């Protein structure tokens, strides 16, 4: 009964999505407030129905109801409770339902926050959101129904892919989806702006928190996914330029660009057309990401769905929404009033440069990801575009961007003073250079790591140098307590900017650490000792382990540093009989910001293991940086104040009163 109620609620949610896709739009077109008023209430009801549906699916998984195909294919009665729950979104059907759940959650959030919005924008946003919801609900019900039943249920299921039986999976997909789907709101805002013909600072102010929310979750989701790959695949890699990873990176780049361009729009009423275009682009890229992952066009660790029918359906959704939005854009863009003009050397100018570079980065990732797929589709030739391509294209674009980032932060709006900005950054620049010289003296190489480390230090210090000048400059003129007043008086969004940019610096520092790591891949038997970087690793014993749904061979290893034992680690290789799959379970010890990473697989001779031992200095900073970026976003999100763009008329060294991020 619960299962069928969930199924019915899903169908009903589709009906409501259709209603909400049409009635409010009719209201917008005919300027009928009553019809527009329907949108929020229906969005809330739709959300409620999808929640019922999702709860029913979770219930079915929890109770191992094997009359559902979805449960049979992805669950097993012996699976631990946590994975019975996370398994709901670990498979194709459940993850698509999560997609729709988050979509309707955002719809509901927009519905209740409508007071500050013009009524027509509010109704149109919700209507566009309902179009997306209807398309995906139809997709779920017709091609990937999680509530499909079996008349004669088997007594047990096929279990979940062991790679996905991991706490990381509990949060990675929801985070990523919150990001992907969050961009649907900005898309809906863009489409609504085009429909209603309102594209102005008010619009930019309204859409800002939604971009920030999506961006925060996308950042965390990507970082989480990277960390998950790092410790479950057992090879210590954290970014593979895998198409699925790229699929999440592209919307992130577009969302980052969008975040910056809306600031210009809010403050200066400029870059309107471009901002709308970016909003459409960002969501289009997340739809493309969904298509890549969900259609099964590629087979990689993430792509656990494979059904051409689904691929064609998603492609149709993709063409409909991207094509529809671009058509709307083409029809309306000419009627947009261009905003104010600005000098190239100004905050706006720097942000435009940022947008250009980020878009180009995005384009290179797009080409590197889709070119092999297109080539295979057209000629059947299989080529693989991997790290060499991205290292040669993406990296040379992105690194100079980091060099420009602190400069842009110190530039004033409208008319900037490049020389003054550079002067203010002298300290950060000197520190970066100093660190590089120090590293050359101490380590001697590799060059790329030293360069990255210097850049990272410069980026981190540069991110705060603008804040520092603004806090201390006045304090030098006034009394000491003014420092706190200044610090307090600065908008939180300024701190957000600094944090987010410093986060990038931290990640760069983590990447620099890769060059100083050490690794050993060897066959070991109990008693063997291996030296990895500054650590000595002793294999003490090899023994069996049993878990709820797996058996494992575990190696007991001691890590010694300078003769003293600092950790005992048990890397293992697990065997899951239900799926007949093995999975490495790496053991990790964090030392300062670095990690000792041990992985094993069964050795050829009995009583031995093939061990992969790594020392990865500073590696945690890669993800820590992402967390700091997200914190910056959160900080900026908490700033409910309006942004005041001040046009400077006189050339002075004084700082703009408020910065944007």
């Amino acid at each position, binding site marked *: *009964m*619960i*299962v*069928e*109620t969930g*199924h*019915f*609620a899903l*169908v*009903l949610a*589709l*009906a*409501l999505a*259709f*209603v909400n896709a049409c*009635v409010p739009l*009719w209201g917008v077109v*005919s*300027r*009928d*407030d*009553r*019809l527009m*008023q*329907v949108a*929020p*209430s*229906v969005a*809330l*009801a739709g959300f409620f*129905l999808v929640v*019922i549906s999702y709860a029913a699916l979770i219930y*079915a998984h929890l*109770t*191992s*109801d*094997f*009359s559902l195909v979805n449960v049979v294919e992805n669950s097993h*009665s012996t699976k631990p409770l946590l994975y019975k729950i996370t398994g709901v979104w670990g498979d194709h059907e459940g993850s698509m339902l999560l997609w729709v759940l988050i979509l309707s959650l955002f719809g509901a959030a927009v519905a209740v926050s409508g*007071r*500050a919005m013009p009524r027509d924008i509010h109704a149109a946003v919700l209507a566009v959101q309902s179009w997306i919801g209807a398309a995906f609900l139809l997709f779920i*019900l017709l091609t990937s*129904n999680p*509530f499909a*039943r079996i008349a004669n*249920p*088997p*007594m047990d299921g096929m279990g979940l892919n062991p790679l996905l039986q991991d706490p990381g999976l509990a949060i990675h997909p929801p985070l990523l989806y919150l990001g992907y789907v969050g961009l649907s709101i900005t898309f809906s805002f863009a489409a609504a702006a085009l429909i209603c013909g309102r594209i*102005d*600072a*008010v619009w930019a102010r309204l859409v800002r928190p939604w971009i920030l929310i999506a961006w925060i979750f996308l950042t965390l989701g990507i970082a989480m996914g990277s960390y998950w790959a790092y410790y479950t695949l057992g090879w210590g890699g954290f970014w593979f330029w895998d198409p699925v990873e790229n699929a999440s990176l592209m919307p992130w780049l577009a969302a980052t660009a969008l975040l910056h361009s809306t600031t210009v729009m809010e403050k200066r009423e400029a870059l309107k057309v471009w901002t709308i275009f970016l909003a459409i682009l960002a969501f289009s890229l997340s739809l493309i990401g969904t298509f890549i992952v969900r259609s099964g066009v590629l087979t990689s660790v993430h792509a656990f769905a494979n059904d051409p029918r689904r691929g064609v359906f998603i492609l149709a959704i993709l063409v409909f929404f991207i094509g529809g939005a671009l058509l709307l854009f083409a029809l309306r863009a000419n009627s947009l009033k261009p905003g104010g003009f600005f000098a190239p050397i100004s905050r706006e100018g720097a942000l435009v440069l940022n947008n250009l570079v980020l878009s180009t980065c995005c384009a290179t990732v797009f080409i590197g990801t889709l070119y092999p797929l297109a080539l295979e589709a057209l000629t059947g030739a299989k080529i693989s575009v991997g790290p060499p391509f991205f290292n040669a294209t993406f990296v040379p674009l992105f690194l100079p961007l980091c060099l420009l980032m602190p400069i842009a932060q110190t530039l004033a709006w409208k008319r900037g003073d490049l020389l003054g900005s550079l002067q203010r950054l002298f300290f950060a620049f000197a520190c970066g250079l100093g660190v590089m010289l120090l590293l050359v003296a101490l380590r001697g190489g590799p060059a790329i790591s030293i360069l990255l480390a210097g850049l990272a230090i410069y980026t981190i210090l540069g991110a705060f140098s603008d804040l520092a000048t603004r806090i201390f400059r006045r304090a030098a003129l006034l009394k000491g307590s003014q420092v706190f007043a200044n610090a307090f*008086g600065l908008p939180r969004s300024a701190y957000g900017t600094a944090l987010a940019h410093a986060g990038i610096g931290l990640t760069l520092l983590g990447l620099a650490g890769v060059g100083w790591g050490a690794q050993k891949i060897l066959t070991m038997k109990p008693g063997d000792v291996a030296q990895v970087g500054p650590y000595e690793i002793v294999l003490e014993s090899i023994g069996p382990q049993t878990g709820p749904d797996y058996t494992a061979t575990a190696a007991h290893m001691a890590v010694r540093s300078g003769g003293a034992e600092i950790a005992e680690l048990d890397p293992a290789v697990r065997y899951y009989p239900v799926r007949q799959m093995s999975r490495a379970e790496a053991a990790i010890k964090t030392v300062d910001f670095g990690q000792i990473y041990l992985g094993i697989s069964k050795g050829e001779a009995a009583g031995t293991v093939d061990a992969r031992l790594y020392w990865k200095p500073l590696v945690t900073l890669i993800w820590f940086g992402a967390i700091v970026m997200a914190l910056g976003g959160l900080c900026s999100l908490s700033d409910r104040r*309006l942004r*005041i*763009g*001040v*046009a*400077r*008329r006189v050339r002075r060294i004084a700082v703009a*009163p408020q910065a944007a991020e």
Partner: protein
Amino acid sequence: MLWAIFALLTGLAIFAVLWPLAKPLAKETSPDVAFYRAKLDEIARDAELAAISPQDAEAAKTEAARQLLAAAEKDQAATKPTRPNPWRPRIAALLALVFIPALGLGLYGALGHPNWPDEPLEARLNAPAASLDINAAIARVEAHLAQHPEDGRGYEVLVPAYLHLGRMQDAVHAAQMALQKLGVTPERLTAYGETLVFANNGMVNEAARKQFEQAIAKGPEPKALFYLGLAASQEGDKASARQYWEKLLAQSPPNAPWRSDLEGRLAVLSNQNASPDQAGAIAALPPAEQQAAIHAMVDRLAARLAENGQDIEGWLKLVRAYKVMNEIDKARAALATARHDFNADPAAKARIDALARELGLDS
């Protein structure tokens, strides 16, 4: 109950559309104007806190005020009073009333299974035994064992069920676990050995034989004797087979159900004794002893048939043997007894008649 919930949900969905159509309009605010007003307030506040210099504040104020004017102008144009058309909400309401239930029930009708109950695993496992099919029963015991792996009786119960389903390897594992968990007894050793035999297509392999040998070493275990005999006969060691089976026969109570089967097997052994292997052994004997051995063999067969006459092959063999030994009277007598014993069996009778004709004993 299910339909009541469906009706409730459908009602809620329709209500979500009808209610906003019916409720009075919320007062129209003009967020654009409000936005620039808020901006002006903000500038004033910043200026007061000295977070912004007076010149900057002035510049910002001018710009915001300019935008406020533009917004107010646009606002007035946009909110030009339009006469609400009373028919639009009515059409929308009607469409919602028809469309939502139609799509909801229509699509659900095509996809859903309203009559199928939930099937949570636990409830299926706890269903009354009568309504339980063997798979569910097995799963129930398996689930119990996952919780209480020390309960050997569970494994013991599973063995025949697995065998029934042809899950031979599972059966072997269960029998082995039962032996481990419950302790070694002749019965369990035999049961494990027997499962091994079943899993091995009825052949008694070395592992199985070890179990049976251990079993009889620990105490009287008729089944183990039987399988040891079977093992010997499969290996062609008829003498050992006979030894085991005769020992078993001697131990068995007169009404033991396996008696007749066992006797049958012994008879087969005896018959085979006449042919190849034992025949070879007899041929190796000196002539006088040969004759004696053959006589002894035939006498044994006769004695067995006197005890249990339901062995048509035995009778045929006996008749043929008497004829070969030129004891025509005995052959005739055996023929008569056989005819009497198999009076009710036309097929057997036909074979007896055919043999009689062949050997010329009828006339």
